């Protein structure tokens, strides 16, 4: 079952198109990463998913209900951008207020989410004295209140130290293991790569790639070849059948077989110093996608 389903979702602010005909399907129990450069339309999409703004066109189904439906949004745990709280209240009191705004929850929930987010020791402290990382944790705790089946969170590891990031990663995995669907946007692509089951890349309001992080779009293994300086010219000629880049005697060949590349070099009389297959990281692929889209936009006059 799709927990989030968007069909031709479009949002225009005057003449500016923030999100354009976006289709998105997120299945139950997935951790879904939503990636994009600044201004790509991530937060606008999240605000539409949470009913904060209405789409100009298109449809959203959240937890099986077509939006706008406050009941679907109320069942969704959320954290948008930098979480905000009432500074004159303690962490626990803030959670109590947020729970009451959503219709209340069992008293034991506060202890559970405070424990889960590592804030039990400071729950009685006024939020104005919290660090950014503590506020971030409190935001996650608030999102988890009442065990919602769907979490929509924006930059969950923002402001956390490496240990905190690792804890949150574990927390998200535990939530997914319990059947909670997590839809998260993030700039920390290494985190997304480690945590998410699927990712979508949004550029200029459009989803340009979607899939499992390891097989995102056109990601293929590529071959890194090092040759002697005297062989660079010959190697370039021999590897011309594939798309490749060369820098200081190192060729990056867009092909998935090291054997083929090595054979081509050997047939031309070039002995490589090393031939190694490598899988580009999500970060590399993400930057490539954004670069390609920007190039297309420039070519199209946009």
């Amino acid at each position, binding site marked *: 079952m799709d927990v989030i389903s968007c069909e031709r979702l479009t949002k225009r602010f005057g003449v500016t198109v923030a999100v354009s005909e976006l289709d998105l399907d997120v299945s139950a129990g997935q951790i879904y990463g939503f990636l994009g450069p600044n201004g790509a339309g991530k937060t606008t999409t999240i605000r539409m998913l949470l009913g904060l703004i209405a789409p100009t066109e298109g449809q959203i189904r959240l937890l099986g209900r077509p939006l706008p439906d406050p009941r679907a949004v109320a069942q969704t745990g959320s954290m948008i951008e930098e979480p905000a709280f009432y500074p004159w209240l303690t962490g626990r009191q803030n959670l109590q207020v947020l729970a*009451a705004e959503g219709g209340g929850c069992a008293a034991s929930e506060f202890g559970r989410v405070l424990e889960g987010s590592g804030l039990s020791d400071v729950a009685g402290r006024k939020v104005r004295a919290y660090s950014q990382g503590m506020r971030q944790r409190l935001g996650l705790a608030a999102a988890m209140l009442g065990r919602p089946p769907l979490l929509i969170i924006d930059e969950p590891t923002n402001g956390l130290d490496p240990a905190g990031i690792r804890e949150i990663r574990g927390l998200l995995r535990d939530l997914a293991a319990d059947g909670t669907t997590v839809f998260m946007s993030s700039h920390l692509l290494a985190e997304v790569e480690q945590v998410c089951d699927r990712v979508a890349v949004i550029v200029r309001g459009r989803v340009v790639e979607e899939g499992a992080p390891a097989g995102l779009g056109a990601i293929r293994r590529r071959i890194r070849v090092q040759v002697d300086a005297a062989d660079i010219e010959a190697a370039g000629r021999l590897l011309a059948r594939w798309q490749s880049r060369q820098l200081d005697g190192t060729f990056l060949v867009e092909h998935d077989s090291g054997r083929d590349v090595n054979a081509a070099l050997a047939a031309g009389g070039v002995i490589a110093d090393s031939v190694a297959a490598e899988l580009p990281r999500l970060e590399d692929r993400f930057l490539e996608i954004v670069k390609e889209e920007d190039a297309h936009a420039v070519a199209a006059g946009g």
Partner: protein
Amino acid sequence: MLWLLAAEFRKLVRPLVWGTALVMVAFCLLITWAAAHNARAGLASPRIPDICAKAATAQCGQVIAHAHGAARAAAAATGQLAQPGEVGHVAAGMLASLPGLLLIAMIAGGHWGGEWGSRTIRQLLCREGRRGRVLVAKWLSIWVAGVATLLACWLVLALAAPGVAAASGLPAVHSALWAGLGSSASSAGRAVVVLGMFAAVGTAAGTIGRGQLATTAVTAGSMLLALLVAGIASIGQLSPASFVQGWMGFEPAGYLPTNFWSRFVSGGHVGQLAGLAGVLVTAAVAAAIARWRFATDVTA
């Protein structure tokens, strides 16, 4: 809805609200103390025209006697108004006039406009997407804060005002402590309605201002504008300020003022029922504006 209201009341427990309410109570006490002091001074030296101060004519004798009588009457009236039963008029009048308007403007600014300032409005709307309920909860909580301040003012004045009057040397009052309670309660009841209207204006102002200072300014500014309009003879009767005047029936103040409103309203008389209708229509218009403004994207 009850959960949402509970959350709103919990958020009201903050220094800004307590501080504003305390200032209001202190202001009522200060006004009472100043009035008692002035009444005592008036009793000691009544206002006698200069021409009669040194003349010993029979006509001046009458004028001087009249001045002494007026000073005694004013001091007695002040002493009577400072009794626990009667002093409710002061609390009600203050809350239903400019001081009450400023109190509501401050509370609306912090409690409602502050949701934008602290960016908690998004969390609130993600928790409760039914925006009509959010508006009602905000309006009710602001209103209740105003009513609670009215009761606190009355209570403090009831406890302190008789002592203030006695310490100032005003003539002893021989009526029962709770004389005039019914009339005061009626005045307080009318003030509760006016506070409801002020709260509705504050709620609408929050959706317009979307920030603490802006909400306070729009709430206070809109009603101050209404007061200015109420002073214009040709259209004054149509001003919400005239409706408040008509409904509350504010009278010219003695030493102890029972309002800060009537002196600004001179645009024509509005009856009590017409005043009530006007107050309710003003509140309804404010609610409609709030509803319309809040239906758009309010989280940008």
